[in-house]
């Protein structure tokens, strides 16, 4: 285990406080929160309740926008995206569990812009780690994950939320089972 349920919940509480401060500082009265499947949705559900947002939570699946389809084929599980509110001219708060290379967030931004033209996009991440391959940085972070090279973490949930030390991405893909876990390196 990397962080137990209590540590994860503490980190999410801290994220909620920082997000409230950030929304106030930017004059954002009615942000639209969108979680990235699967782990990001679990974190976003907590944040959405803690902050008490009025608009329903949006769910985003990035499988069709991944940059590795040409290399590894279709992702084993695609969950429908569901954006209950139009994103045009809205301030979006995008939520994911782990930020590593930044490729998932690149894909998520592309999905978002195929739905419309947001006024702004903020990024909230539960666990930020090394390994960035794109110029993407979170606005709000729950915790900073110090990991050995090659080490993976993944969020398991939805209840309780625990950050586990994970397998390598290749092993994970083969053993991908419905439900149980988020995507470690995303």
């Amino acid at each position, binding site marked *: 285990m990397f962080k137990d349920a209590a540590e994860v919940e503490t980190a999410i509480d801290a994220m909620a406080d920082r997000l409230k401060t950030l929304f106030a500082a930017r004059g954002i009265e009615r942000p639209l929160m969108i979680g990235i499947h699967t782990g990001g949705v679990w974190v976003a559900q907590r944040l959405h309740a803690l902050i008490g947002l009025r608009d329903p939570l949006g769910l985003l699946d990035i499988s069709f926008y991944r940059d590795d389809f040409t290399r590894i*084929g279709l992702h084993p*599980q695609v969950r429908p995206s569901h954006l209950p509110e139009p994103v045009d001219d809205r301030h979006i708060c995008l939520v994911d569990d782990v930020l590593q290379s930044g490729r998932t967030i690149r894909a998520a931004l592309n999905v978002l812009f195929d739905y419309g033209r947001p006024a702004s996009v903020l990024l909230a991440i539960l666990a930020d780690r090394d390994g960035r391959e794109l110029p993407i940085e979170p606005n709000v972070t729950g915790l900073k994950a110090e990991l050995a090279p090659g080490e993976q973490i993944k969020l398991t949930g939805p209840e309780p939320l625990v950050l586990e030390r994970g397998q390598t991405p290749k092993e994970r893909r083969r053993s991908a089972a419905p439900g149980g876990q988020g995507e470690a390196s995303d």
Partner: protein
Amino acid sequence: MAVADPQLDADGNLKHFLTVEGLGRGLLTEILDRSEGFLGVVQQAVKKVPLCRGKIVANLFFENSTRTRTTFELAAKRLSADVLNLNIGTSATAKGETLLDTLRNLEAMHVDMFVVRHADSGAAHFIAAHAAPHVSVINAGDGRHSHPTQGMLDMFTIRRHKGAFEPLVVAIVGDVLHSRVARSQIAALNRLGTGEVRVIAPRTLIPSRAEEALGVRVFHDLRDGVRDADVIILLRLQRERMDGGFLPSEHEYFHLFGLTEKRLASAKPDAIVMHPGPINRGVEMDSRVADGERSVILEQVSNGLAVRMAVMSMCIGTQNLAANAGVHEGGHG
């Protein structure tokens, strides 16, 4: 071990989609699950996903079908592929070029996928067997044999309305003898574990020994056949069958086998009515049924796009895997 299915690669991934027969329940379920994901694409302002960007899909229609060609074209375009529509009957083959020469020419243009419709059974298999290894083939209907994407879009529509297949009674009404759609539907329904599959038709339009050969219950009376059915699928009555002595007249067919509100009453109260289109109103069914609340005919059209996107992206994905075999996998974090 069974003989390798020409539709699958060595790891069991879908490479061509030629027929439902021979595919496992797991793979059919995977097609349905993936199709769910593609349904949402129409909610986007930009109704496209970049999965097959840079790929070229050629529609090879040896038999005319504007509707089927259009749905394949739209599905490919929603995947961001480029689409060539070749009306083979009026082009190269008419000038004496052989089919294989036509294929070689298209392959030289780096086409990645052929969508094939042909009047001869087995045409898509033939093309798949002779196409270059990097090319996938999707059967858009071959003779009386198979129309697998239509079969799977019907399964998808049934599952969205009814959930599990096990408790269902599904009745297929019409020209089962000549219908590639019925063949694909029956194969998929049985493979997915449907409780009871019935076919209802005049004796002239049902293959001999259908019960054993197809795994169905045969009825010759519509009202008996649809009793307590959960799903009623009407097949299109092809007008050319009128000349072959199979049926006396359209009027006679409607009188005995046309679905009316009254006949529908013996099915389950929440039964759905399906039809692959185009409908002959007043032949296969009464207009009130076609436009009624049980009809899911237009939903089938929308679902067809999602299912075709799923099948096309699965085949292209398999080709991508093959092209990158041995290349180190990069992460996506």
